[in-house]
Structure formats: C-alpha cells, structure tokens
C-alpha cells in the first residue's frame, strides 16, 4: 500500500521534471521520427536485393525502431540518476521513510509512460506511410517493450548508483551500447549476417526482444520468437529490478 503510494508520488514528480525539460522532449519526439524519415527511404532501395518485398520494409524496420527506442530510453536513465546523486536529490529521498522499491520504480514507470507516448506517435506516422496495424500484436508488443525498457532502466540506474560519477558510468554504458545494438539486428535482421554473428546474438537479450517484436508487429503469435522473447525478458527484468532495489537499499550514495 505504502509502496504504491510512494511509487505514485515519485512517478508524478519524475513526469513533471521531464515535461519541464523542453530539450529532452524535443529529442524524445524527433529521434524516432528522424529514423523513420531518413532510414526507410534507403531501405526501400536495398529491400529487393535482400529479398524483402518493398511493402514489408516497415514491418521489419518499425519493430526494430521501437525496440531500439525502448532500449535507448532505458539505458540512458542512469544519466539522470548520476545528476540527481550529485545534486543530493537521491540522498534526500533515501533519508525519508519512502519505499526503496518506489524510489527506483517511480521514475522507471514514468519513463515507460513517456515512451508509450513517443511510440504511439511513431506508429501513427508509420500507419500514414502504409504500415498495417495488427492490434493484438501491437498490445503484446507494448508489454514486451515495457519489459525491455524497465530492464534496461533498472540496470542503468543501479550502475549509476554503483559508479556514482559520470565518467565511469558513461564508459560502461557506451561500452555496452555498441555491441548490444550491433548484435541485435535492430535495423536489419541478424539473419542477413554471417554465422558467428547469429551465434553471438543468442547471448544478447536485445536480440530476443527485436525478434519477438518483428513477429508481434505482424501478429504472428505462433512464431517461436514470441515466447522466447518473453521467456528471456520477463525473468531477466525481475532479476535486475530485484538487484537494483538491493543496490538502492545499500548504496553508498
């Protein structure tokens, strides 16, 4: 009960902070739109040579963008944690009796909500340029992306609490970012790559998220990628949130 209440309070606070940050809002809306506007036309040209019918380009590309957005919005969460650590905000919250889980999850949920808004805009634009919506698939996709973003956000927040300063935090996050993105087939399916890439990809949670997203976007619930995606992301998400809450409890912040 108390956890719910505290979560609500911190959710509200974090949402207000984001809405009051115009630069953040601008980047949040513009980056997915830029991807769509600048990348899709190129894909349309290469699609036939890769054996994808040109109408199917968005079906492959849009889920990739959405997964990328979820991943990026989650993993960048720790930057604001670092800032708030240095400003003493987190310490102020930690001295109150507020639930530690709420201090972690309030901002994460707020981030998820903002992501849902950005995603809705992207999907709406995609529909405008010929993307066919499968409603049930889209709903399941939203859950999947929520898991992915929450998992990355909890990971990023906990990493921020452990490293406590921007340089080591940024080094870790940037170091992880590139290999994870390249081995996930975000923009093009990994099946276009050589065998070693396909093997390595199976150790990458984002890969499962992207595969499942592609299946869900077309409403193909029967595809093995769908259950595999949830089977990887759900437990991993629970595990990381558990770890992050522990870090919050103990953190030498």
């Amino acid at each position, binding site marked *: 009960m*108390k956890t719910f209440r*505290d979560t609500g*309070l911190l959710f509200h*606070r974090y949402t*207000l*902070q984001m809405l*009051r*940050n115009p630069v953040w809002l601008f980047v949040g809306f513009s980056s997915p739109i830029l991807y769509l506007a600048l990348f899709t036309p190129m894909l349309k040209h290469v699609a036939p040579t890769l054996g994808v019918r040109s109408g199917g380009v968005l079906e492959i590309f849009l889920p990739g963008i959405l997964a990328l957005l979820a991943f990026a919005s989650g993993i960048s969460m720790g930057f604001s944690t670092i800032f708030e650590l*240095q*400003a*003493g*905000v*987190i*310490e*102020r*919250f*930690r*001295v*109150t*009796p*507020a639930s530690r889980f709420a201090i972690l999850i309030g901002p994460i949920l707020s981030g998820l909500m903002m992501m849902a808004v950005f995603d809705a805009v992207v999907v709406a634009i995609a529909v405008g340029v010929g993307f066919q919506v499968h409603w049930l698939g889209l709903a399941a996709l939203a859950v999947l992306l929520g898991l992915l973003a929450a998992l990355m956000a909890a990971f990023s927040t906990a990493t921020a609490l452990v490293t*406590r300063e921007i340089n080591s935090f940024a080094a870790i996050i940037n170091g992880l970012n590139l290999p994870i993105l390249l081995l996930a087939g975000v923009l093009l399916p990994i099946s276009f790559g050589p065998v070693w890439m396909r093997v390595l990809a199976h150790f990458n949670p984002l890969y499962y998220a992207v595969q499942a997203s592609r299946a869900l976007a077309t409403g193909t619930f029967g595809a093995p990628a769908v259950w595999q995606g949830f089977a990887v992301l759900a437990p991993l998400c629970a595990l990381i949130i558990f770890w992050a809450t522990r870090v919050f409890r*103990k953190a*030498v*912040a």
Partner: protein
Amino acid sequence: MEAIISTTDLRKQFHSRRGAVEAVRGVSIEVGRGEIFGFLGPNGAGKTTTLRMLTTLLPIDSGSATVAGIDVARRPKQVRSRIGYVSQLGGADELATGRENLILQGRLYGGDLASVSSRAQLLMEILDINEFADRRVKTYSGGQRRRLDVALGIVHEPEVLFLDEPSTGLDPQNRAHLWDHVRALRSRGTTIFLTTHYLEEADVLCDRLMIMDHGQIVAEGTPRDLKRQVSGDSVLLSLHDEGGALARARLLISAEPYVRELTTDGDQLRLYVEDGSAALPGLLRLLDRERIALKSISLSEPTLDDVFLHQTGRSLRDAGTNTTESAA
C-alpha cells in the same frame, strides 16, 4: 539529561584505489533531548561521514549508534521517520518549485495533501520563502535555496534534525535568521545536531559542541567550558620600560596566585589568567602600588580557534586546506 543520540566508538573507513581513508575513527557522543549540538572541524574532519552514518545513509563499519532510542544499524526505517536531514548539498529538485518540493517531501513522510500543504505554507512564511515559493528552484539564489533546504528538513516535524553546514552561503542577516529559527525549533523540543566551519556559529548557537579533527574528537563541552579549559583569558600589558620596570613587573606579576603563564614580547607582557575580568582590578592595583607606568592594557577571551590550536597544534583557519583526499 536524556540522551537522544548516542554513539559508541563509531568508525568508518573508505576504500579507494589509493588505499583506505579512515574518515571516522572512534567517535563516542551523547546528545541530550532538546540540545543544539555542534560539530566543529576543518574540511575532511569526518563531520559529514558521521552525520551520514547517523541518518542511515551510510553503513556503520563498527561501533554502535542509537537515535531517539532506536538502533540505527538494526532499525533504519524507524529512525528515518523520526529524523530530518539537510545535507551539505541540499538536494531540492531544480525543475520543481519550492512549494512542490515541500509538498512532495511532506507526503513522502506519510502526510496527506491537505495537512502537508498547510504545513508547507506555514514554513514558507516562517523561513521567508513565500516570495519565491512558486518559482522553480533553478532560479533561486544560494541563500534562498539554503532556506528551502532547511524547510525540507523540517516539513515533517522531526524529533531530531541533522543540519550539515546549514549556514553556508547565507549572508550575515540570513544567518542570524537561521539561528533564530534553530533556537525556535529547540524551544519546541526538537534536538538539533549541526556541523559548521564557522567559529562564531559554534560559539553563539550551540549549547554544546564537539571539535573533530582527522576523524577523532579532540574536545567536547559547552563553548564556555571549552574556551576556559584551554588557557583562561589572556591579558596583554604594554609598559614604559624605564629603570627596569619591565623586569620588575614580570617578577611581581608572576608571583600573583591567579597567573597561570607569563610571556614577554618586546615591551609587552602577555599573561594567562583563569578569569580575566576578575584578575584585572587586582593587577591594576598591584602596578599602581609599585608605581609601574602602564601604556595600555587589554583583555581578550579565548576563541574556539584557540581551543583547536591547543588541541591539535594547528589553527582551524588554516587546517584542512592541505588535505589531499577530495570529498565525494
């Protein structure tokens, strides 16, 4: 005196790549309910570290601490609901207004919106925040922000309030205001535990204080007792040195029972006495009787800086500037 904060042999070590830093090395204190207890020490003395252990923010390495009768290490949750803490950094939300900050803080302590709002309003009046209460904190001046920080620490009416350098950044007028407010809090039964670098603040505001250096307590007591136990007062005499008057005065004065110590510096005599204002009349009478002509005489009371000097061999004014470890 009922102890509301008590610690025994509190210790904390930090490990960094360049080795361990012993930030707090065996601190034992007792603070009575309703006291203003001060923690005076140079940069890096371990003041913040001690405070963060007492406020549940930092695990205690060894030793024990209770606040409001509750063991800090074992029952941090119960401790949290009874204390308020204003950190050295403050920690208000920059993008929120002062009022929003106060209301959220009050609600995190469990208050409902209506009562927290009226409490926030009251505090904003008392601390003179009203004028800028609905502006974003980002736009506040240093002193305005510090007042908000203090308000955030007391929005839930804690039993014990921890203030880490509350008056840093305040102008003399606002500092005096803050002192008044701290005294008012005490008169309503709140215990206040504050750290400071300001000798004057420690002297004027605190009922009792502890002087800390390199993680250890070097002296403890009321400001008055501390200053007394150092050297008593010092009296500076300037004489016309005619016909060996100086040597004669020296001999005579050192024979007086109330003189503890006597030093000569040119034509000046400096003597340390138990109680300067009581010794002065006798001293004047003696010199008069012996017809020793006086150029000037002055009495100075010891400061807390003298106490620090006496205990550590360094002056508080230059201590701490050469610490190589940077604060986190």
